[in-house]
């Protein structure tokens, strides 16, 4: 199909789609007039039932925790998929071997100043700490395992910015990263199994709920949140590594 015809076809479709959408939307309650009841019921119940002050996380990791299990495995299968798609095949391995025997550098770069290097190293520690804080206080304040995990995964990128390629490669290519990613996902399911073992339905919050407002409160919410954090952090690092694998191999050759 020519581009013109495709756009004409789309124009017809888009007008129709907009028409369906807009006629439907007119019957919705006006903006700013949420009527409930699902959200309101849970907002009222969560603090009493689960000793969690952040209702959103109580829903994510407890009331609708089964959704989040699915979501974690969406992440798991996407990370596996990226690794599957970007796996080096025969041709690439051959090319890499050739490169190793002939390490010609073809791109020169100005060295970064030491100030930048020191600064990024400090930021590295800080972002890991910040990620931990966000990840462990999910049941109390905005945040949670997912957000914390992404922040922690961002920390090694600072090493890349600081051109500390060797450290960057060592961290990201470590087999443990992959193991942590999978175990984080498995641990979520295992928390569910604990409930089964004591005779409650899957993913029931069977741990003591603790005192509202405490870091260790709200039972399995904090635990699951931590598992998610591990998986997300490792998963994002893995994806980054898969994309950069080839480029890192080159940088390594340059350093040799």
């Amino acid at each position, binding site marked *: *199909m020519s581009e013109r015809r*495709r*756009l004409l*076809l*789309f124009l*017809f*479709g888009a*007008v*129709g*789609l907009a028409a*369906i*959408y807009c*006629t*439907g*939307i*007119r*019957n919705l309650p006006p903006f700013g007039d949420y*009527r409930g*009841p*699902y*959200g309101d*019921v*849970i907002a009222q119940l969560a603090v009493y039932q689960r000793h969690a002050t952040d209702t959103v996380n109580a829903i994510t990791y*407890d*009331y*609708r*925790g*089964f*959704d989040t299990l*699915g979501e974690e*495995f*969406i992440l*798991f*299968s996407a990370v*596996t*998929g*990226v*690794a*599957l*798609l970007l*796996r080096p*095949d025969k041709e690439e391995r051959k090319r890499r071997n050739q490169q190793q025997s002939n390490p010609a550098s073809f791109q020169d770069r100005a060295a970064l100043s030491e100030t930048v290097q020191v600064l990024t190293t400090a930021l590295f520690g800080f972002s890991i700490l910040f990620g931990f804080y966000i990840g462990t206080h999910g049941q109390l304040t905005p945040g949670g395992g997912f957000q914390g995990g992404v922040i922690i995964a961002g920390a090694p990128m600072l090493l890349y910015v600081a051109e500390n390629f060797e450290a960057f490669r060592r961290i990201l290519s470590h*087999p443990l990263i*992959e*193991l942590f990613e*999978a*175990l984080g*996902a*498995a641990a979520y*399911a*295992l928390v*569910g*199994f604990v*409930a*089964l073992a004591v005779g409650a*339905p*899957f*993913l*029931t*919050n069977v741990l003591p709920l603790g005192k509202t407002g405490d870091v260790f409160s709200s039972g399995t919410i904090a635990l699951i949140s931590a598992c998610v954090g591990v998986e997300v952090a490792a998963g994002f690092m893995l994806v980054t590594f898969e994309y950069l694998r080839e480029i890192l191999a080159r940088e390594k050759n340059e350093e040799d």
Partner: protein
Amino acid sequence: MLSPALLIAVPLTTAAFLGGFRRWLPRSVTDVLALLAALFNLILACLWTHHALHVTQVYWFGNWFPRGTMVLGIGFVMDVTGCGLAVLTAFLATLALLFSFRYTDSGGDHYHPLMLVFLAAMSGFALTADLFNLFVFFELMSTAAFALCGLKTQEPSPLAGAFNFAVTNTVAAFIMLTGIAMLYATTGALNLAQIGLLLHGRHDRLVIAAFAFLVTGFLVKAAAVPFHFWLPDAHAVAPTSVCVLFSGIMVELGLFGAMRLYATIFQGCFAGTRLHWLFVVSGAITAVWGAVMCFAEHHLKRLLAFSTISHTGLMTLAFGLWSRQSLTGLLVYLTGHSLVKAALFFCAGILLHRFRSVSEPYLFGKAKSLAWTGLLWMAGGLGLAAAPGFLLDIGESHVTAQAPWTEAVFLFAGVLTGGAVLRVGLRVFLGLGDAVPTDESAKVREEPETPEQSPIINWFLWLPPLLCIAASLALTFWQPFANGAWSSAIRFMDFRSYAHAVYQQFTPAVILAAPKTPASDLIFAVVRSLLAVGVAFWAVYRLRIPRALRWPSHIEGPMHPFREIQSGHPGDYVAWLTVGMTLLGAAAFWLGLGG
């Protein structure tokens, strides 16, 4: 009784362990563990199906049972239909894992975890009673499917196919999410039963728009025309064992999603209208289009893919008739089609393994030595034409007993798809006829999945198709299956018993009179299969018959105007998707408001 959560949790946990320890586990251990997890699912799903025949039970995750009318958490409703589909999924997944035993390229050992995630997602999709959870499992299923589809990264064509698949299905998922948001905005609930109760009787513009959005999302998965373009592209490039799951169950689950929503949410809303005719028309068009395109193909997997489109169209048609009998027919037909189509894909996989190609012109006369595979392939072809003795025949006679005019569509689709498969069989396994016409996609090289040095056909290669064909024949004569399909259809349509189960923990089965099994017209079935065989011979010997009688060769030849539409461009596919949605929405407004 073991918890139904294990149907999801066991494959997922196994997947995570296999993924995490892939560097340390030898291939054989991975194979066996994955196979064991799938077998576990098969057994547990069978147990629950048996249980569901007596009582429909509900399972609340996190023990969040409803408080009053308010459903707090996510539940599984263990009804016969959902459990039965979980059995079918697990059966096909077990066979697919068996088929890929030992030799098949496992993509750096990422293949097994993804297959198990795929299995878990499909089981969850069949059982869940929550609208958003349905979306989550839809996405989980899609993500695993996208990755599996691009397993063969040696050539660019699998990646192009996987990309088109991923883009269209992701757009579909977000269309679906828009529909979910509309329903949530108006009812404030996410449980299917609760939404159904809250909406009861309402069919205003919002409900119809939500219906259009949700159904579009599912029909993209079910590959209804014009949402079907991704399917042949994805099937042509995915590994055999993945194709088996795509064609055998994933596409059908797309339709099942639409059926589940219709039965729970929309049935009450559109009770007085003729909205369900929308599915009849869409199904008939899809069935005819798929059959015509199927006959024109010479790439074996694409040929089978188009036949899947055609048969899913027939199922959509049966769904649209919306009666106990047509639904019984649908369930029987679905089971039969899944088994037969899986067997055919396995056979295509054996051909690819042995001769390193799935192109009909290339394989012409090459496979004379594979007598058993040929026999299974021919049986599959007859099965698609709904020959007597196959489940498809029983399913078809249920549907046509409901609406006799549908016989024309069934006949057309069955004869053309069955004829196409038989034609391939005559040429490839028997070497009959003249030079084979070819087309552009048949010339594209298909990357073999197995290493060069193992051309032997091991037991784990021929056993899966044999089991599939055997099962599709055996179930025909097994009375409990027919009874189960009947009671499953009755309870699937009965929204009150579904809602009762959600709010009261369970619904005991109502024992109804024995199913009316319409006498399958044996003579008609025989004539139909002979017609398919005739069409196959006609195509094979097309050059030796009088010129005036050569019309099948015109269908088989290059049909440029039609084939050009299947352009392989994601932009085209998305444009068609919007057009299809417009047509569907317009029809929904017309039928839904008019009634």
